[in-house]
């Protein structure tokens, strides 16, 4: 620094800005963070690559028209039939009941926690709900088979005809629905709690009731988070394997009837992809073809939900 007094004529000593230091530690950390960000992308790419090869080989042996038009899924019978619809419908069947149960319950729980519950209630209820997310799915499977199914069968109203069998899409769907409630509730509640207090106060000041504030202000403002929770919940239901394997039977069956036994795509993959499956056999490739289709369905659903959110959300700041 110059110690000269300010007269304009004397030029101050030039300030030396030191050269930029090579901060290697910084680079290492940035490199590691990039690695973290890229891992999941690379994994997805890896999955796609792994799925594509065997899937293409599968379609060399089985015409794609058979895959999408035949109405029977019996890939390993002597008289094989590769119509995938029965197991796609099996997945949709179970998922439908899971959605019907899980999304309203989850959203309802979230609205209660965010808008109605006292701070004390919320403090107890929310962590409890989040702990439920950690229950192993195999436990839900046995819960379905040994509790829900008997409960339904024992209390079946006669005028509805015969009760469902031991294995039914409905029982699996109900339990899947209950299983996704914590996911939906927890993420939706986070989104709703993040809606600024000032918006709620604005609505109350106009003579809104609690219900109006919740449904017309908070839910629309939190929509993107709510839809994200739905997508996560539904994805969990579609991808869930063990519960359906245990509770829904394992019989390919083209039906939306919740009372019947069905096979889902994931259940087919899980039962077929066992240790003794020969690499390169048709069975092996079939598993990949079904896996690829499942991947495409989930991807399409996620894309649809992103579009829906962009279209309908009410963005605050």
């Amino acid at each position, binding site marked *: 620094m110059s110690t000269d007094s300010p007269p304009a004529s004397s030029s101050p000593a030039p300030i030396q800005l030191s050269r930029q230091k090579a901060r290697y530690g910084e680079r290492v950390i940035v490199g590691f963070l990039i690695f973290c960000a890229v891992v999941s992308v690379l994994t997805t790419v890896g999955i796609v690559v792994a799925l594509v090869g065997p899937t293409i080989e599968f379609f060399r042996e089985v015409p794609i028209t058979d895959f999408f038009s035949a109405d029977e899924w019996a890939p390993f019978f002597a008289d094989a039939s590769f119509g995938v619809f029965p197991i796609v419908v099996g997945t949709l069947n179970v998922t439908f009941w899971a959605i019907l149960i899980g999304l309203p319950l989850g959203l309802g729980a979230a609205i209660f926690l965010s808008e109605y519950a006292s701070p004390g209630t919320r403090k107890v209820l929310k962590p409890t709900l989040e702990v439920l997310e950690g229950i192993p799915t195999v436990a839900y499977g046995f819960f379905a088979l040994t509790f829900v199914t008997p409960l339904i069968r024992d209390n079946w109203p006669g005028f509805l005809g015969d009760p469902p069998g031991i294995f039914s899409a409905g029982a699996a769907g109900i339990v899947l629905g209950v299983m996704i409630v914590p996911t939906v509730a927890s993420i939706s509640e986070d989104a709703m709690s993040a809606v600024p207090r*000032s918006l709620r*106060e604005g609505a109350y000041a*106009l003579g809104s009731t609690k219900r109006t504030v919740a449904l017309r202000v908070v839910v629309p403002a939190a929509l993107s988070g709510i839809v994200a929770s739905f997508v996560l919940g539904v994805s969990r239901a579609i991808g869930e394997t063990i519960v359906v394997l245990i509770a829904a039977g394992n019989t390919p069956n083209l039906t939306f009837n919740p009372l019947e036994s069905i096979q889902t795509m994931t259940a087919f993959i899980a039962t077929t992809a066992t240790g003794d499956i020969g690499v390169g056999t048709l069975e092996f490739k079939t598993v990949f073809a079904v896996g690829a289709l499942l991947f495409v369905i989930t991807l399409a659903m996620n894309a649809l939900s992103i579009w829906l959110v962009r279209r309908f959300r009410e963005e605050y700041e």
Partner: protein
Amino acid sequence: MADQLQTGADVKTAPPAIDAPDAAPNGGPTSSSAPVLSTENVHVFYDGIPAVKEVTMDIPRHRVTAFIGPSGCGKSTLLRSFNRMNDLIPSAEVTGKVLYHGQDLYGSGVDPVEVRKHIGMVFQKPNPFPKSIYDNVAFGPKVLGMKVDMDEVVENSLRHAALWDEVKDRLKQSAFGMSGGQQQRLCIARALATNPDVLLMDEPCSALDPIATGRIEDLMVRLREEYTIVIVTHNMQQATRVSDRTAFLTVELDEQDNRTGVVVEYDETEKVFSQPSDSRTEAYVTGRIG
């Protein structure tokens, strides 16, 4: 009359039914016009500690009443007790009486939702809903189920808030595309749309630039013709420009160092600023403290 605030049946014709001038329903002193709001020994507590105490005052009809005072003196707390917004804070408790046309807002059986239909509020920070300009204004009438021509209500409210000409071509656009001052006028329009009797304004200009502030102040002076306005402000010049009456609040410390707001002086604005009767008011309005 007594159950006016409990019936939701007739929201549209609400104010005229109960604010006939000179009615003095409680047999109180008959001035030129009965007060719209009058408080009797109001205390507001947070967690049992008083934030404002011993407030007894009358808010005259079709006047602008300003609350001034240093930060933390309970101006906003007092204002929020006039439309029961403090109910939303679980730890808050109000004692005493807040009479609105003679009816106690805190009386048993009074529905806070009904109170807020009659007594609207504008907040410190503009808080439009993340909806279109039109839907923001229409929100109140819609949720109250008012049977009105919505287009007309929206236009009238925006005109009243001096915003119509600026937004009439983009009513369907998001309110978030507006400037801060426009957003605040939208919030005023939104409050007017439900046809309230009283408008409470909690530092409505503190987040705005001087030009936007000037517009809102002009608006207040005009709105006084049809509404009773109570405004909290940090800005003493603003109080002198817009208000007819001014209440000066300050903080008192008790033995446990709890800060409690009290009304020191409440009078015609001109008198409060030129000949304050309390030395604390004088110190504040002349800029020596605060």
